[in-house]
């Protein structure tokens, strides 16, 4: 009798499972929609401010400016060129990245003190960007295909309902075991919790000041990272962001670094 009941329940549920998405499929669908929210910009220029705050409240500000070229090939990553303005001892430093979805990125660095362009390793995924709480993988790992996704349900925060997604990096050398994201009903990421390799909560990222560009592209102009373990805070602000300005794609070649260099 008991056995029959179990069979009945299983059969009763079966059609439902056939028609609905799995949690993984649903997670992937939302993550893809969220990623595509920020696509179609063609190219982009901006100035960026990075404010580093330690637990005592001491603040330092770093300034960079950058250009990004969207890769129209959906199977390859974008290219970006970053020019460092402060701190003053790194002024004139230029970094060029060609990101890839499954392979390591290609990166070159021009350092004024050395006066040479160096190809550098990009396997440093978990390393800190300029002493901040932002890791290199936080910049290069924005493509949804770099993770496995899972939909966990809906969650209320600040009187708003968010999709709650769990993701696991599928590239090597990540500093994270998993991430938990909250995404709003416009598919904009609101918050991400990062868990370290041991599974402990490491830091929380808040994406704020969303601006709608070209009537279709949502981009957050403030990123705040609170490290839970060392209590440091990094605030990243995009200023003067302009999209689709018509940058020459040759500007993103290794040889063009010297046009920016000192």
């Amino acid at each position, binding site marked *: 009798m008991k056995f029959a009941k179990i069979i009945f329940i299983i059969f009763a549920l079966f059609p439902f499972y056939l028609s609905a998405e799995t949690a993984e499929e649903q997670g992937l669908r939302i993550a893809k929609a969220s990623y595509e929210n920020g696509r179609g910009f063609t190219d982009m220029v901006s100035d960026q401010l990075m404010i*580093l705050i*330690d637990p005592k409240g001491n603040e*330092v500000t770093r300034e960079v400016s950058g250009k990004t070229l969207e890769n129209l090939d959906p199977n390859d990553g974008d290219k970006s060129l970053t020019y460092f303005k*402060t*701190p*003053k*001892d*790194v*002024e*004139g430093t230029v970094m060029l990245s060609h990101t890839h979805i499954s392979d*390591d990125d*290609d990166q070159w660095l021009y350092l*004024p003190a*050395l*006066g*040479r*362009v160096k*190809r*550098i*390793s990009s*396997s*440093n*995924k*978990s*390393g*800190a960007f300029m*002493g901040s709480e932002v890791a290199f993988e936080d910049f290069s790992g924005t493509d949804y295909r770099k993770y496995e996704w899972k939909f966990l349900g809906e969650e209320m925060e600040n009187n708003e309902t968010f999709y709650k997604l769990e993701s696991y990096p599928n590239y090597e*050398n990540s*500093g994270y075991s998993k991430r938990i994201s909250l995404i709003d009903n416009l598919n904009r990421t609101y918050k991400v919790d990062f868990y370290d*390799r041991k599974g402990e909560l490491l830091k929380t990222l808040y994406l704020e000041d969303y601006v709608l560009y070209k009537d279709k592209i949502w981009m957050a102009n403030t990123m705040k990272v609170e490290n839970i373990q060392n209590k440091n805070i990094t605030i990243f602000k995009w200023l003067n962001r302009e999209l689709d300005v018509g940058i020459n794609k*040759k500007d993103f*070649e*290794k*040889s*063009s670094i010297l*046009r920016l260099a*000192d």
Partner: protein
Amino acid sequence: MLKKYIISFLFVFLQYLVASQNAAAIDYKAYGFIQPEITTFFNGDGRHDQSNSNQSIFVKGTFITYLNNGDQKITINTTGRIDEKDSERSYIDFQKFKYEQYFDDITLKIGNELIFWGVNESFNIVDIINQSNLAEDISGTKKFGQPMISLNYNHSYGNFDLFIMPFFKERIFPGRNGRPRLALEVDKSTVAYESSSKKNKIDAAVRYSTVYDDYDIGIAHFYGNNRSPELNVNPLSQKLDAYYPILSQTSLDIQSTKGAWLYKLETLTAKNGEERHFGIAGGTEYTIYGLRETTSDLGIIVEYTFDDRNDFAFNNEGVLALRWTKNDIKSTSLLAGLVADMSGSSNRFFAEFEQRIRDDLKVFIDMSINGEIDADDFTYAFEEDSQLTLKIAKYF
């Protein structure tokens, strides 16, 4: 004399270019630093009976402006030093003083320029365009700007560069009171050349470079006065006479970047005067990221250089070095290692520490300790010049 006229002309031309722009639209960057340095030597007055300390001030200034919507660029990059002891080490140099015009795929460049070729951390044997200032740094990595006209053609198959270089500059060696210095002084009045045009010889070079997948590749040929002179003892003056042969050098440099491993190779074959020689230098650099679950990285560098000239200073040397970067807000880093002569017992330990102590201040501590040096090694003259240098840079 001609050089002075050309530099004055260039200066007036650049001023004209800047003045012809709408003043409000000129966008420029100007920055630099001033760096007092104190050196102390561990072996007292040393082999050449010199002072056991030195003070020095190094300055660097950079000015960049783009004109006509970025189609033209002017770069001025000046370095200079005032040295307490060695007048040869006091200098001013326009490392870069150049005008660039960007066409679609072509860049035209006129003026003083620093051109770096190579991939290695320690032995950049293919780097030949610029003259070394050994008074500034005995290792030869500090270079003078080279006047040139250069063309770069950026094709989808790679980059083609042509360099035409008038105005050869003689190598600068440490003076009598410079420490470290060679055992004998280099006589400036007896400099000789293979070329009948001497220092007015116009040198030329071509280079092709490309990026193919994980490989960065450069092939180059240089024809001109060798930057590195032959030094021969003059028995009458008891000084060294410098002789600059004509060098015809073909070189290849490759770096392969495979994850955390970098593989580097520089090789050349050259005809120097009447003799042909071959050189090869390379190695690997492996970086451990996030050392012991911290934010620190540790790089391990192993490099080796070989040259088939027996009388060449670096004909069989190895380097083992560790580079620790803390990746903190102060950009703390330490590079330390050992340079060893593989065919003798000479060796040298070095360490370079740096840390930002304020947004506009950075401290550098450099140490160099000479181990046992063979009497027939050219660095024997520096054996008692182990030193510690403290530098503080103030940025503007």
